[in-house]
């Protein structure tokens, strides 16, 4: 009989080794797949790295992708820290993009600094309010936030779809369902050739880190996440903490939405997020909810995406196959979390031994 038992505390070194092994496993298995496609795996992996960091342009693209991942992950981390499983990042991105677009489309002639500031505020409020709905239900009636935030993603998506195909459809697009492009004033400026969002991302990493470690609210969120009873005894206002934390969480996702719409798409569309809200859950989780880790994991993940897209064009690998690598790495790393927490043993005798002799 195979049984699993919980491990004791594992040493840091050992857990790092297991995670690295997981990545190597994924690379080896993907290498076999590349061989089947009659390509040399080593060439493909070299190209993957070159594709992500091989030129100034590519590094810029990695930074653009990681910017969105970092900000969204920070937002999600705030909710996760409280053990509030916010799967609604995608919807909050949409609502943030929607609110920012409302300003951009209705006041296109405002001076650039004013217009962009208003769009940022609107985007954050849009995402924040959208996140406040499940937070309110959770605080008031203890509803299941995972399901609720997940389902609200689809409402947000359909709302944007409705606007794109209906009231906001650009009459000049020959009937094609697209929303009119923003005016030049509504587009975020570039710093060193990359839209200014990357500076926001870096600032937010520091801010959220300070918020977690050195602020009262941040501490309350952590305590509430550890145990609701402790929070009660400590006299923390649980409802208020849930509402505040979720508003900030949604506001950060909403900011991502504003950045995506303004800097990259120059308009609102159903493709404005491209699944960022879901990808960010993964990066948040892999980074143990720690802001500086989020920065690193997001950059690595963005490099994987950029390199993946590079090998797709460079070697004519089908898109699905290139994305398999990302899937495999995630699968193995997440699976390794299991092996860090549990171990498999073959029989009772061994169980007894392990209980005595482990650590």
């Amino acid at each position, binding site marked *: 009989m195979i049984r699993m038992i919980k491990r004791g505390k594992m040493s840091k070194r*050992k857990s790092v*080794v297991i995670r690295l*092994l997981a990545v*190597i*496993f994924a690379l*080896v298995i993907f*290498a*076999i797949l*590349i*061989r089947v496609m*009659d*390509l*040399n*795996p*080593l*060439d493909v992996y070299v190209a993957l790295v070159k594709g992500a960091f091989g*030129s100034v*342009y*590519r590094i810029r*693209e990695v930074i653009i992708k990681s910017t969105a991942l970092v900000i969204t992950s920070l937002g999600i981390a705030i909710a996760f820290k409280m053990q509030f499983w916010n799967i609604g990042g995608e919807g909050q991105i949409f609502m943030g993009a929607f609110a920012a677009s409302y300003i951009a489309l209705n006041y296109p002639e405002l001076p650039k600094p004013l217009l962009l500031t208003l769009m940022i505020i609107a985007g954050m409020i849009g995402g924040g309010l959208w996140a406040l709905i499940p937070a309110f239900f959770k605080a008031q009636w203890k509803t299941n936030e995972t399901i609720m935030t997940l389902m609200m993603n689809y409402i947000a998506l359909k709302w944007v779809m409705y606007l794109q*195909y209906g009231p906001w*459809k650009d*009459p*000049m697009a*020959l*009937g*094609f*369902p*697209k929303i009119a*492009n923003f005016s030049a004033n509504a587009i975020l400026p570039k710093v060193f050739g990359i839209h200014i969002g990357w500076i926001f991302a870096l600032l937010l990493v520091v801010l959220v880190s300070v918020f977690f470690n050195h602020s009262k609210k941040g501490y309350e969120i952590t305590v509430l996440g550890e145990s609701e009873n402790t929070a009660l005894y400590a006299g923390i206002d649980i409802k208020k903490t849930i509402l505040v934390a979720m508003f900030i969480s949604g506001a950060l996702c909403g900011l991502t939405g504003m950045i*995506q719409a303004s800097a*990259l*798409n*120059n308009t609102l*569309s159903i*493709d*404005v997020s*491209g699944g960022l809200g879901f990808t960010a859950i993964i990066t948040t989780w892999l980074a143990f909810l720690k802001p500086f880790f989020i920065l690193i994991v997001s950059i690595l993940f963005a490099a994987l995406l950029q390199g993946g*897209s*590079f090998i*797709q*064009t*460079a*070697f*004519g690998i*089908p*898109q*699905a196959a290139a994305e398999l690598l990302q899937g495999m790495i995630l699968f193995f790393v997440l699976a390794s979390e299991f092996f860090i927490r549990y171990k498999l043993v073959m029989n009772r005798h061994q169980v007894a031994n392990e209980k005595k002799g482990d650590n």
Partner: protein
Amino acid sequence: MKKRLGLILGILMVMVFAVVGCGADKSTPTPKKPVDDKPQVKAGFVYIGPVGDGGWTEAHDNGRKYLEDKLGIETVYNENVPESSDCEKVINDMIDQGCNVIFATSFGFMDYVEKAANNHPDVKFLHCSGYKMSDNMGVYFGRMYEPRYLSGIVAGMKTKTNKIGYVAAFEIPEVLRGINAFTMGVRSVNPEATVSVKWTHTWIDAVRAKEAAKALLDENCDILAQHQDAPGPQVAAEEKGVWSVGYNMDMTAIAPKAHMTSPVWNWGPYYVEQVQAIMDGTWESESYWGGIKEGIVDLSVLTENAPEGAKEAVENAKAKILSGENKIWTGPIKDNTGELKVEDGVTLTDEQLTSLDFNWLVEGVIGKVES
């Protein structure tokens, strides 16, 4: 524990060497060299769907392969590219990888191609089916309405219920031209028949295409035509045991018992001509709109599912289109609310056919343009 770890690492290393080792003899595919000393061209193709979609994107990809074969130049492609800023990113990636000619093959790529064209004046852009142009951005398309009209003749002769279904993507002039020409073809041989339109608002979502197809079949349509990238409606017709008219490529293999014929694209020669002109230094951005005569569009060979006499009828009509006797858009043409849209003896110009005002459905179509 240490021993076990060592063992795992050892096995892994052996696996890595085995995989890499047997791969080492085959190096990466070296790009084909140009046949002569003309300026080197590397062409990138941006596709909205997968290259194996059995329709729109596959037809373009066949054109890309033809181009590689004929001119020996290097090409790359990227599939499943969304009509969002991702499109611009894919184009920038391709230019970063040395492409100096970009073919973007979906209408919704237009604004992103325009942006990339402004940022890269040295690169030549060709955008399929759009209307925005600049010095380094040309547009190209085909008079698909000609073979659509011919396929309508086949459908009109075949239908028994006199109800034909049409699974359509978006309410844009390109699709409306197709529906209207098809319907006029149908009614040129069968004035009783009607064409029911269902909008899917997607080029590529096979599930939505099939749902729309099923809804049309439930309305007693016995022939399905489509303006979708992939052959979902063909499958629906085959399953129901009725007939179908395809699009993009000959779709006989997908629905052998249903498929009668398809209006098809033949992009290869156009791609060769354009790239050749770029290599010769004679290229100028243009708005290309070829028809059956130029060979960029045609009707695929009629299968045995097609009705008797259809072959002759199609050949006659085709001869009239080629000779210019039948321009298809010559009045009187009424829309499906009874309003006279084209006066007797007047023929719509290319500008009118591609303009904002071309937003009506011809008499005989059941459906409406939402705007």
